[in-house]
């Protein structure tokens, strides 16, 4: 297979390799297949494993990133930046096209600042949630992070993909402030207040002056973020881990309506997470232990599963931060409201400042990163997953409508509904996880068909995905269809203007710019 991008000669390609090596050292650039294989999507839903990069180059500083971008521009070599490359379920580290070099930023793993008084950290792209957690612990900072499911992920990568977490600052992009960005021509930009030399508010206020551009570098191919500020939460006096369980399938809409006011007015500190029984059952090992028949698991088997596991159709959890008396008083009011929903039971656990967190779910509320959610992949042999996640108003009626649409669609394709509602107050992300055997082409095809159909049916009703897998970026971009895809057209105009050679991440979020596909 040729590694050469369209219009690039072997001679130019070799020169680019040599210049990359001069910048980063020969150890950190390679086109060997054994190295390229490390950047494929480990959870690819494609039976051929998806795309494989033409090589990788791994700079260790902003200056090296700038130099690499200039070389890429000079020789027209497309580059795909990745921070930790653990964006599993969304494509991992893989680029959209085979002729793209991965720009691996994992070596840029410095924690540049932790500010105790103003509660933020500044990190490079290679810093994972686990890295920052260890750093905070080891250095005695009384600060918590909001962590997502995968603790090995990059803080910057996750925020730029608009990931969400379980803590107070759960909207990771909205609570990340002040970026340093290498532009497609190698120029260097600082956003917000950082646009002014020596400005002390760079990572605490995104105000700046003139048009705000931070969003242009999220889910985009307009630049490469080399450092960013991230808000942290001062360790509270205590945290109350709150749990609820609801027996019946039709309880979920009622729960949304009951919990919404408590989330909007700040009584509840963290997102409200509500998952169906398969969210928990998938942690118990292989699916065949529960059901080995055709199609999706029938409702009567799900009910039986609930009884055996001692769980509800729906299980929910969230956290309340504060002194013991205060959080328990808040919980009492919430419990009283929840008790009006038939078949609901509740429980809670309080941890004072510095007390060891003993329950796994509560550790997420307290900003302790882990990988325990990956246990769910034991549900399938060679388990992998892709997710789709429509954004929906936090209203019971809206949950009812979208839940039925998604469940019915998946059942049509013989795929189980395994969903988690991450409710932020005014809206929720309905994260639907499709677990499949990555060595079984039929299973992959079934999941892909179900995925596409569900996403298109949701879009036809006006519900959009907040993020998607590499393989679906063009499709999802097209679903944002107001005024003949005005948004995508605007993105394309920007891309052509600031990256005229189409160097950075061609195809990211459906934006291709001037990139030309190789004729093969």
């Amino acid at each position, binding site marked *: 297979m040729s590694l050469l991008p369209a219009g690039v000669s072997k001679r130019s390609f070799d020169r680019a390799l040599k210049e990359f090596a001069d910048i980063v050292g020969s150890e950190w650039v390679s086109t060997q297949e054994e190295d390229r294989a*490390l950047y494929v999507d480990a959870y690819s839903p494609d039976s051929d494993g998806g795309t494989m990069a033409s090589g990788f180059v791994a700079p260790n500083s902003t200056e090296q990133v700038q130099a690499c971008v200039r070389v890429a521009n000079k020789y027209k070599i497309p580059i795909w930046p990745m921070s930790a490359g653990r964006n599993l379920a969304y494509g991992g580290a893989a680029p959209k096209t085979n002729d793209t070099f991965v720009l*691996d930023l994992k070596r840029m793993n410095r924690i540049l600042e932790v500010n105790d008084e103003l509660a933020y950290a500044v990190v490079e792209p290679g810093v994972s949630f686990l890295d920052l957690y260890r750093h905070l612990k080891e250095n005695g900072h009384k600060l918590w992070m909001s962590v997502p499911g995968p603790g090995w992920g990059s803080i910057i990568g996750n925020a730029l993909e608009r990931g969400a977490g379980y803590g107070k600052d759960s909207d990771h992009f909205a609570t990340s402030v002040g970026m340093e960005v290498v532009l497609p021509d190698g120029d260097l930009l600082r956003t917000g207040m950082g646009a002014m030399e020596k400005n002390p508010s760079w990572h605490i206020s995104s105000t700046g002056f003139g048009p705000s551009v931070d969003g242009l570098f999220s889910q985009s191919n307009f630049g490469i973020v080399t450092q960013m500020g991230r808000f942290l939460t001062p360790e509270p006096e205590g945290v109350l881990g709150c749990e609820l369980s609801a027996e019946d399938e039709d309880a979920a809409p009622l729960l949304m309506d009951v919990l919404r006011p408590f989330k909007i007015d700040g009584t509840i500190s963290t997102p409200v997470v509500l998952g169906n029984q398969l969210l928990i059952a998938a942690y118990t090992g292989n699916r065949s232990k529960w059901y080995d028949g055709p199609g999706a698991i029938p409702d009567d088997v799900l009910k039986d599963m609930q009884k055996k596991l001692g769980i509800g159709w729906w299980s929910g959890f969230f956290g309340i931060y504060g002194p013991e008396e205060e959080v328990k008083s808040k919980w009492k009011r919430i419990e009283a409201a929840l008790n009006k929903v038939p078949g609901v039971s509740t429980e809670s656990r309080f941890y004072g400042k510095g007390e060891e967190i003993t329950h796994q779910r509560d550790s997420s509320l307290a900003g302790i990163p882990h990988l325990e959610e990956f246990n769910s992949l034991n549900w399938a042999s060679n388990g992998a997953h892709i997710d789709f996640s429509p954004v929906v108003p936090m209203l019971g009626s809206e949950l009812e409508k979208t839940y039925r649409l998604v469940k019915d669609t998946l059942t049509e394709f013989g795929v189980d509904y395994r969903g988690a509602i991450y409710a932020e107050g005014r809206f929720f992300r309905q994260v639907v996880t499709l677990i499949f055997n990555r060595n079984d082409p039929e299973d992959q095809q079934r999941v892909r068909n179900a995925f596409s159909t569900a996403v298109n049916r949701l879009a036809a009703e006006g519900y959009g995905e907040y993020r998607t897998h590499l393989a679906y970026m063009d499709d999802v971009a097209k679903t944002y269809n107001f005024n003949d895809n005005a948004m995508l057209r605007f993105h394309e105009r920007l891309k052509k203007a600031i990256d005229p050679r189409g160097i950075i991440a061609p195809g990211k979020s459906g934006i291709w710019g001037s990139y030309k596909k190789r004729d093969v």
Partner: protein
Amino acid sequence: MKKSILAVPFLLLIGLVTNAQADGAKTFENWCEICHAQSHNMPGTAHIEELFGESRKDLRNSPFVNAATVRQIVRNGRGMMPPFRRTEISNAALDELIEYLVAENQKQ
């Protein structure tokens, strides 16, 4: 029972582990423990237990651990485990990790 990484400096002092093994122990702690520790609900540990049984679930006390297998799985992944890149675990760090795991298994 979980083995303490803290014991390594002491053992280094009395000459029972090599520098490479000590560095390998750090790599294990930094990269592997989040999935392969012996505490409850670890995906890697649970997966190995399901495949090979309870007695083999600790990578530091497991009959199937050898240099070739560790190298192969770290660089190629297995099941839900993705491959680890050189920018995460360098070739030198992988050699040290292997030395540590093999030595730990030989102690059993």
